């Protein structure tokens, strides 16, 4: 039995049936993208409001409904992230050398010069090793350390999953070889 038959006749009854079937999934998409719970509900409700507005266009195709909800939810999510990123880019930047800044830096603890020297050398070696990676390897590595799955990285870079695995393997191999066991 489709939602359209189960939902009864009126538009509102159908809408409620669709809501009860898909709301939790849409909300989970937002939650999986690290959106706070309340905001995830707000976005999910916006998704369903948009569906309600477009509802007369649907003629009982359940797959089309889910497809519409997916695209709408993804668009709203991308819009939200993009707005946040754009806001960040255009945000106020404070010059650390600004003489008006009144705060004082905390006094550093007594430094262990040998340890600091070692850390600096190590960081320089890591930087050098990363710089030696190809651009494709750097891209895969970056998305991987950010927690994206192989399939997501492949989709992001528009390459195959095998290519992702291969680039990542080569990148790790290179880093291990350059950084070795020397600490």
């Amino acid at each position: 039995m489709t939602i359209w038959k189960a939902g009864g006749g009126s538009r509102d009854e159908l809408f409620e049936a669709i809501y009860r079937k898909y709301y939790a999934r849409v909300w989970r998409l937002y939650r999986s993208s690290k959106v706070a719970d309340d905001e995830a509900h707000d976005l999910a409700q916006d998704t369903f409001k948009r569906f309600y507005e477009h509802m007369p266009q649907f003629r009982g195709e359940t797959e089309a409904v889910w497809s519409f909800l997916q695209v709408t939810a993804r668009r709203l999510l991308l819009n939200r992230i993009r707005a946040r990123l754009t806001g960040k880019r255009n945000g106020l930047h404070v010059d650390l050398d600004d003489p008006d800044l009144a705060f004082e830096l905390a006094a550093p603890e007594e430094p262990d010069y040998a340890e600091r020297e070692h850390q600096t050398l190590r960081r320089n070696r890591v930087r050098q090793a990363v710089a030696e990676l190809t651009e494709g390897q750097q891209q895969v590595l970056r998305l991987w350390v950010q927690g994206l799955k192989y399939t997501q990285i492949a989709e992001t870079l528009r390459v195959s999953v095998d290519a992702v695995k291969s680039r990542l393997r080569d990148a790790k191999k290179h880093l291990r070889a350059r950084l070795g066991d020397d600490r």
Partner: protein
Amino acid sequence: MITKSDWDTIQHELLDVDQQHPLGDPPTVEEMLAYTRGELSPEDEERVRRLLVLHPELAHALTAPLPEEDAAPGEDGHLPPEELTRRWTELRRSIHGDGGSVVQFWRRASLAIAAALVLAIGGLLGQARWSAHRLQAELARPRAASEYVVLMPDGQRGRPHRPVRLAPNADSTMLVAPLVGSESMDGYRLRIRNESGAVIWTSEPLHLRDDDTFAILVPRAFLKSGKHQVVLYGIDGTREEQLATYSLTVP
């Protein structure tokens, strides 16, 4: 061995590469969706790819798989039925009004404004009609002038020029302007000027009374505080000639 500290440095280093080569604003939603469908030119495709790498949260949102099934009770991401119902109530309220929907809000607001306007206009009309009725009744009744002032013409020889000062609390004042030493004219007219010289009132053509005076009853509300001047004109055919001025001060 690559340590956690190394990974932190690697991540930082990869971020730093982006700082050195700024690529501009994040891609638009349309660009990102077109990118996934392979509809962009090679240059744009490369730009969007780099920007997605630069902003992994966008890459994640663009590629995150949508759950095909609801989470089971106890699993992460499970939405309890009572929460689902609560959110449904909110959503329905938001769509159908009760303060939530913008359309509903404006529809209700428009009706409320229209009703308020009808009431306000009705009230104003009622009040205006009542005021007119009261005014008409008052005008039809005898009314005593609370002050009687004889004005003296300005510039009379042997008299210092001192404007007449009206009483501060009078409701209305009878101003009497005597005609002194002028030959008889076909008619006369009085005008009142305010402190800046602007004419604030002009009488109809008047005839001199038997005692050679002109009298005007002036409601005090008509005269603002300050100096005023009553000006007497003689009418000779189509010509008007200034005959006298009478200064007064309203407190």
